[in-house]
């Protein structure tokens, strides 16, 4: 008895005790039905209200973010397309200048060639003189038949025949010479014709090039118009482009990070010869490693400035705003510094090789093993390779500026889009949570009613037994509420 909990009415039977307590409590539970229902509903509303509010706020934030993203995206797209159009116009201008500058010469050349061709054509048109009219007279003489074998007539006729034959041969030779000269003219005609054809083809190619540029400008203009109109298609195209740029730039930056890692490995050990190997900046970070990293960062920065001053990237507006002379000075300064750093890296790479060789020699002497024979010039290949790598890598790192710019530009769009998605997802989750609490309060109200089902049944019987009329207000039961 003493071991039983205080609430056990029936010793040794807690279930029955609990049932008894429940029966005792039931009238009180019935009496407290309305306030308990109110409390449960209030609790549900208490949880649901702020969650819904937070969800709405997040949804509104997501909308605002999207609008802002759109604005930024279109502004970027407009700027980019305007730049492209400008560049296309520059190209067209260069093309027109180049081609039209040579156009008078081309025209003159064409006219000259046409004139020559015409002249040659005319020359070819000159036909040889036709056979003289006396041919007919000769034919008539030839038809005369000698009468009674008159020898005089015969001789005259033979003389005439001989003369005609010689004249005929002369005429024929002259005729052939004339044709020969015409053929020669025609032979000389061919190169001009080919040159004419080539000149025309050249002019055609230039015109086609110009036409292509014009088509490209048309396409860019169409894109620009779409961006100005802020169409969904333009937004989609710009977002896709930004995403592609982001991933490509990330990939290239990862490759560059690999290059930087190799660079770091090359110079970390020799840097310990300069700043000390046992010097630590933090618990695990050696000064030599940080110094090597600083050199790499300085190289990257110089590369960045070089690309900026060369107007390949546009990360620093101030550099672009510099006067032309100052910009060129800055470009040369960045290049010279980069060159010096590359030289230092090559020297460090050599020192690294020497340090490793020295350590190896020491270890071999400590281990009392015979030193490996020198490989001659083959053994020098890794040293030379390291030096070359040390010299080239800073210049290769300089080009990181280009993907870095793409990354920075596209990260705004991608990050903005990701934030919108996150805000929307969070808003949806909060809405679901709010609804869950709201419905949970309803479920708890129903469960409470199930708990006090007996008094509720009794209440219903009492109601049914009463005569019809104005129903009395039952304690805790609101209008339109089911018992």
């Amino acid at each position, binding site marked *: 008895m003493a071991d039983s909990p205080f609430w056990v009415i029936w010793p040794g039977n807690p279930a029955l005790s609990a049932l008894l307590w429940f029966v005792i409590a039931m009238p009180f539970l019935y009496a407290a039905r309305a306030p308990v229902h109110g409390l449960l509903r209030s609790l549900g509303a208490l949880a649901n209200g702020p969650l819904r509010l937070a969800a709405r706020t997040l949804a509104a934030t997501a909308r605002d973010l999207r609008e802002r993203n759109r604005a930024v995206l279109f502004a970027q797209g407009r700027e980019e397309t305007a730049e492209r159009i400008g560049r296309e116009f520059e190209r067209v201008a260069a093309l027109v200048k180049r081609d039209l500058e040579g156009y008078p010469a081309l025209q003159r050349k064409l006219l000259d060639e046409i004139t020559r061709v015409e002249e040659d054509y005319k020359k070819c048109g000159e036909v040889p003189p036709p056979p003289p009219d006396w041919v007919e007279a000769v034919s008539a003489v030839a038809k005369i038949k000698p009468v009674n074998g008159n020898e005089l007539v015969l001789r005259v006729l033979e003389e005439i025949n001989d003369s005609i034959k010689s004249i005929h041969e002369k005429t024929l030779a002259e005729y052939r010479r004339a044709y020969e000269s015409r053929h020669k003219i025609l032979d000389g005609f061919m190169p001009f014709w080919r040159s004419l054809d080539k000149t025309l083809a050249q002019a055609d190619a230039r015109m086609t090039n110009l036409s292509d540029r014009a088509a490209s400008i048309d396409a860019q203009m169409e894109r620009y118009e779409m961006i100005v109109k802020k169409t969904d298609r333009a937004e989609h195209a710009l977002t896709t482009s930004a995403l592609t740029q982001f991933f490509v730039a990330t990939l290239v930056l990862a490759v560059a990070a690999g290059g*930087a*890692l190799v660079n*770091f*490995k090359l110079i970390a*050990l020799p840097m*310990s*010869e300069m700043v*000390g*190997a*046992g*010097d*630590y*900046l*933090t*618990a*695990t*970070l050696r000064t030599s*490693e*940080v110094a090597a*990293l*600083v050199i790499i*960062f300085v190289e990257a920065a110089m590369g960045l400035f070089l690309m900026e001053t060369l107007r390949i990237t546009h990360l620093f507006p101030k550099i672009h705003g510099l006067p032309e002379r100052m910009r060129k000075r800055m470009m040369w300064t960045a290049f010279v510094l980069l060159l010096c750093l590359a030289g230092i890296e090559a020297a460090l790479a050599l020192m690294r090789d*020497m*340090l490793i060789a*020295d*350590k190896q020699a*020491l*270890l071999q*002497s*400590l*281990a*009392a093993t015979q030193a490996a024979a020198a490989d001659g010039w083959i053994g020098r290949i890794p040293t030379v390779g390291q030096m070359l790598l040390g010299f080239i890598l800073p210049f290769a790192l300089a080009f990181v500026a280009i993907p870095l710019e793409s990354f920075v530009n596209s990260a705004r769009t991608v990050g903005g889009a990701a934030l919108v998605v996150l805000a929307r997802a969070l808003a949806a989750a909060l809405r679901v949570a709010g609804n869950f609490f709201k419905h949970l309060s309803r479920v708890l109200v129903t469960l409470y009613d199930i708990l006090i089902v007996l008094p509720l049944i009794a209440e219903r019987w009492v109601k049914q037994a009463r005569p019809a009329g104005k129903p009395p207000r039952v304690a805790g039961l609101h209008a339109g509420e089911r018992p």
Partner: protein
Amino acid sequence: MKRRRFVLALSALPALALAAGCADQRAHTHAVYLLVDTSGTYAEEVGKAQLIVNYLLGTLQPGDSLAVARVRSRSFSEKDIIAKATFDQRPSQANAQKRVLRDQVEAFTGSARSSVYTDITGGLIQGAMFLNETGAGKKTILIFSDMQEELDKAAVRNFPIDLKDIRVVAVNVVKLKTDNVDPRRYLGRLEDWEKRVVAAGAREWRVINDIEHLDALLKS
């Protein structure tokens, strides 16, 4: 490992200025004091000590310290330090110092003479003093001995010694003829030393008979 360091260096760079003031430069250095027993029959083992010295020279980094001292009848003296060096921060200079130290130890092992008594305690006190002077983050005393201490009548060593934060490692503890008769003598001797060293505040007490196991110990 290198990549991790690279990333670590990359991430730690912004906090560099802050960290520079807080870093304890000495905490990363390692100082080792090698006591070489030259008493009695153990003097024959001195050649093996050269191997340990060579191994230490190959393992220790620039900025670390190494001292090699002999254990004689009375070992609490700087004169018993055969060779010592705190290696330069520059790797090339450190390598040159290591070569010199190796030559000094080689010369010693070639001309080591046996002593009558064995004053390990005196050597330990001397070693602790040397290590504390270096201010290294990790301090280790290697005792190359059979750990059989024999003192002359005048030598007083039965007082508490201070080996705080020092790791003491007994290396190549060979068994004596009497140990073979009764191994409890050997085990009891080591146990006594452990108690004494731990009571002196040593960070750790270890016995390593296989030199190859020294590698893991020094790296830890």
